[in-house]
C-alpha cells in the first residue's frame, strides 16, 4: 500500500488514471486517509455532485494482511446528504483486494463530459477505464452477475445501483462479499451519488498473483494475531452473541429499554418486536436452510452476518442487520420478517441506505401516504425509488427533504442525515454523539471503546452529568482511530472488557507497521481525524448550531419512560473542547 491511484473522469480525451506516491498521506489508512484527502483537496463550498468533489476509497491500514477482522474500507467525500465531510465504511472483499493491489487509496476526481457510464478494472497489470453503457440502470445484483460472467468469480467489486446513477442523496456504494453478492454497503451520506456523478458504475478489483501484505515483525505479529483472535473468541459478545444472533440481537433489548424508535419516533416500544428480533430471525434462517453465522470478508472471525432464505429456501438477502430491521421494521410498524428481508434486498439492489430509507418511509407514513404497519405499501414506496418516479426521487433524497415536501414536523435528522436505531431520549449519551459528530446522526461515530482502557481525556466520573460529554468525546476519538485501521468496529466489545485483547490489537498494529503504537498514539490519531473533519465542516459553513438534535426530542416525552432529551446546548458545545 505505497501508492495512490487517481482517476480523473473529466480529463480531455476521456478518463485518465495516474499513480503517485503517498507523500503527505504516508502511514494513513481508512477514515484517516479519506478525511485527510477530502479535508485537504476538496473545496468545502463545492457542489457535492460537481467536478471539484472527490470520492476517496481507502482500505484500512491493516487490510490485505493476515490480520483478523481487518477488512473494512472507508469511502469519503463531501456528502450530498449533509453538505459536510463524510466517511462511510463497509466490509466485504474490496478492502483486502485493493490493499493487496498496493493502493492506499483510489480517488475519483473531476466530472465526465457526458453521461457515459464507465467500468474501472484494476489488476496486477494496471488500470483500464472503459465506457460500458450496457450497465446502465442495472441493479447491483444483475450488475455483479454480469461482471462475474466476464471477469470470473474471484474478483471484488465496488459498485452503485440505480440510486447512485440517479444521484440520490441516500445512495450507497456496494462492496461484494465472499460469495460475490453486493451485500455490504458504505451506506451513509449519499456516497453512491458521488460515485454516480463521477460516471463510474463499478470498480472491478482482481488481486490474482498479488501477495498478501506482510508484517515488519512476523513473529510478534503471529503471536499478537493469535492472542487477538483468542480474545475475540472468548468474549461473550464477539464469541457468542454476534455469531448466534447477528447485530439484530439488540432488538429485544433496546425494545425492553423503551429506546426502540417506533412509528417514526412516536414511542419507544414496538409491540411486534419479538417477531423481528435476532432470536426470531435466527430461527427463521435455520428452519429454511440459511446460515446463521458467516463473515462478510475473509479473515473475519466474529462472523455476525448470515444467509436469509425465502420461504422456498432460496437466497433472498444476507442477515438483515439491527439498524435495517429497526428502520424498516419497528420504525414503520412492520413486524413481518420476510417483508423486512425483502426491503433489505431491494435496498442492496438499488444501492440505498437502509437507515435513511426506513426513516424516510416512516416520515411519509406519518404524513399519511401509507399506514404504519403496511409492509406492502413500504415495498411499493421503495420500488418507486428504484424506478426513479417523481415520488421515488423525493424519497431517495432522504428523510429531511421528504419531511419538508410533505410538511412533517417530526423528522429525525441531524445535519440532514437520519438518526439510527436508538432513541436519544432514554439513552441520552447517544444523543450527544448524534448531535455532535461531524458525520450527521451516526450510531457508529461513538462506539464502545472504553475511556479507561484508552486512557483518553483523563478520568471520567460517569455519575456526573458532564461525564456524558467526556464519554462521547472519548468514544468519538477512539472510533475515528479504529476506522483508520480497517478493523471491524465490532472488535470494540472484546477490547472494552479485556485489557489483554486491547494490548494484542496494539501489538498487531506495531508488529505490522514496525512502529510502536501506544494508547496515546491511538488517541492522537483519533483527534487528528476529527480535527480534519470538523475543520472541513467549519469551512463548509457548519456552526455549533448544527450540533443539535431536532426540537421534538426536547419537547415530546417518549413513552414508556416519558423521557425527553435534556443535555444542554452549552454542554454539547464542549464535546470537542480538548
Amino acid at each position, binding site marked *: 500500500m505505497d501508492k495512490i491511484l487517481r482517476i480523473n473522469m473529466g480529463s480531455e480525451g476521456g478518463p485518465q488514471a495516474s499513480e503517485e506516491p503517498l507523500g503527505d498521506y504516508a502511514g494513513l489508512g481508512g477514515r484517516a486517509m479519506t478525511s485527510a484527502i477530502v479535508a485537504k483537496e476538496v473545496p468545502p463550498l463545492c457542489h457535492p455532485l460537481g467536478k471539484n468533489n472527490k470520492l476517496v476509497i481507502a482500505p484500512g491500514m491493516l487490510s490485505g494482511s493476515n490480520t483478523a477482522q481487518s477488512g473494512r474500507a472507508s469511502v469519503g467525500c463531501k456528502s450530498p446528504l449533509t453538505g459536510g465531510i463524510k466517511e462511510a465504511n463497509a466490509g466485504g472483499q474490496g478492502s483486502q483486494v485493493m490493499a493487496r493491489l498496493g493502493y492506499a487509496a483510489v480517488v475519483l476526481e473531476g466530472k465526465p463530459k457526458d453521461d457515459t457510464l464507465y467500468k474501472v478494472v484494476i489488476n496486477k497489470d494496471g488500470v483500464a477505464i472503459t465506457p460500458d453503457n450496457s450497465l446502465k440502470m442495472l441493479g447491483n445484483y444483475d450488475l455483479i452477475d454480469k461482471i462475474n460472467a466476464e471477469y470470473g468469480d474471484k474478483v471484488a467489486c465496488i459498485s452503485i445501483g440505480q440510486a447512485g446513477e440517479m444521484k440520490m442523496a441516500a445512495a450507497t456504494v456496494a462492496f461484494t462479499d465472499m460469495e460475490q453478492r453486493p451485500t455490504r454497503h458504505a451506506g451513509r451520506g449519499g456516497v453512491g451519488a458521488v460515485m454516480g456523478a463521477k460516471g463510474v458504475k463499478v470498480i472491478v478489483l482482481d488481486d490474482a498473483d498479488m501477495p498478501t501484505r506482510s508484517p515488519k515483525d512476523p513473529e510478534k505479529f503471529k503471536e499478537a494475531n493469535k492472542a487477538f483472535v483468542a480474545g475475540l473468541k472468548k468474549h461473550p459478545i464477539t464469541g457468542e452473541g454476534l455469531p448466534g444472533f447477528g447485530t439484530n440481537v*439488540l432488538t429485544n433489548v*433496546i425494545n425492553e429499554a423503551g429506546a426502540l424508535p417506533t412509528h417514526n419516533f412516536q414511542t419507544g416500544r414496538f409491540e411486534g418486536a419479538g417477531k423481528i428480533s435476532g432470536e426470531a430471525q435466527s430461527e427463521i434462517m435455520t428452519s429454511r436452510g440459511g446460515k446463521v453465522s458467516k463473515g462478510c470478508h475473509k479473515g473475519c472471525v466474529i462472523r455476525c452476518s448470515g444467509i436469509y432464505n425465502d420461504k422456498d429456501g432460496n437466497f433472498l438477502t444476507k442477515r438483515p442487520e439491527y439498524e435495517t430491521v429497526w428502520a424498516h421494521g419497528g420504525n414503520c410498524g412492520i413486524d413481518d420478517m420476510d417483508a423486512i428481508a425483502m426491503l433489505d434486498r431491494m435496498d442492496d439492489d438499488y444501492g440505498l441506505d437502509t437507515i435513511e430509507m426506513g426513516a424516510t418511509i416512516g416520515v411519509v407514513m406519518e404524513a399519511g401516504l401509507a399506514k404504519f404497519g403496511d409492509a406492502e405499501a413500504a415495498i411499493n414506496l421503495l420500488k418507486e425509488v428504484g424506478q426513479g418516479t417523481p415520488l421515488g426521487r423525493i424519497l431517495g433524497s432522504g428523510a429531511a427533504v421528504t419531511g419538508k415536501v410533505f410538511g412533517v414536523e417530526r423528522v429525525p435528522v441531524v445535519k440532514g442525515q437520519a438518526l439510527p436505531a436508538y432513541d436519544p431520549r432514554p439513552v*441520552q449519551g447517544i444523543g450527544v454523539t448524534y448531535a455532535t459528530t461531524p458525520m450527521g446522526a451516526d450510531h457508529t461515530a461513538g*462506539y464502545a471503546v472504553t475511556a479507561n482502557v484508552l486512557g483518553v481525556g483523563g478520568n471520567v466520573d460517569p455519575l456526573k452529568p458532564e461525564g*456524558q460529554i467526556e464519554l462521547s468525546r472519548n468514544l468519538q476519538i477512539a472510533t475515528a482511530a479504529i476506522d483508520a485501521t480497517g478493523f471491524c468496529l465490532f472488535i470494540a466489545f472484546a477490547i472494552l472488557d479485556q485489557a489483554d485483547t486491547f494490548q494484542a490489537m496494539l501489538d498487531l498494529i506495531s508488529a505490522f507497521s514496525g512502529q510502536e503504537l501506544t494508547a496515546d498514539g491511538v488517541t492522537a490519531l483519533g483527534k487528528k481525524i476529527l480535527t480534519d473533519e470538523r475543520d472541513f465542516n467549519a469551512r463548509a459553513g457548519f456552526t455549533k448550531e448544527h450540533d443539535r438534535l431536532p426540537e421534538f426530542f426536547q419537547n415530546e416525552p417518549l413513552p414508556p*419512560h416519558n423521557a425527553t432529551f435534556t443535555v444542554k446546548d452549552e454542554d454539547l458545545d464542549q464535546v470537542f473542547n480538548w
Partner: protein
Amino acid sequence: MELPITFCPRALIRKLDDVFKNTCNKVYVMNAELENDPKAVLSLTVEEELIPTFYVLLSQGFTVKVRVGCTMRELLQRQLGLSADYIEQRLQTIFLDGKAVDNIDTAVVRNGSTLALSAAMPGLAGATLRRGGAYASMRSQISHGKSKLSDHIKEGELVLKLFNLVARELGPMFLAKGVWLKGKSLQGFLQKAPDSFRGGCRAAELNGQPLDIDSLDKLEWDQQEIFVTVKKTL
C-alpha cells in the same frame, strides 16, 4: 452448588443442568398447582432440535409464581437457583419494568413486575445498558433506582423474559419445568410454526389427555393463560 469461577459457557450449560436438578425443590417457579384453577395444562414432547423454536416465546414473556418483595439477587439466586457466577458473568443486562438494573442487591421485585434477562450486548447502546458499566450515566433517565424492601415477602407473580444466550441456556430448564403463557401468544406461535414443527413434535397432552398434534394450531386459547411444559424426547 457454585459454578466454577472460570467462565466457560459450554461447561456452564452442563453445570446449569445440575443446578436445576439439585435445586428444583428450592425453585418456586412454574408450578401448575399453585394456580387455583388452571384453565389448561399443555404438555409437549419434542425432538431436541425443536426446543430452540420456543425461545421466541420465552423472549416475549411468561409468568412465573414466586415470592415477591425481595431483592433481585434473592430471586435469581435463591428462588431461581442460579449461581452467583452465572448472574455476575452472564446476566450482564437486566431490566426491571423496562429500567436498566445496575445493582441486584438493591433492586426489589414486586408483584406484577416484568423482569428481562440478557447477556452483554453489542454497540454503544449495548454497552450503555450493561449493568454498572462505564456508560451507565448515558441512560440515567431509565436506570432502576434503589427501591425499598417490602415489610414482608409474599407469594406473587412476575413476567419473566429471557433473551438471546440466556434463553438458550436457561430456556430448556424453564420449559421442562413449565411456564405460564398467554393464550394469544401461544396460539399465534403454533399457527405460525414452520412445517418442520409438526415433524419434530412427538407427543402432546392437554389436561392429561392425549392430543392430536395436527390439532395444535386449531385450538382457541385467545383469552386464557396456559401452563405449558416442553420436554425433549429421550
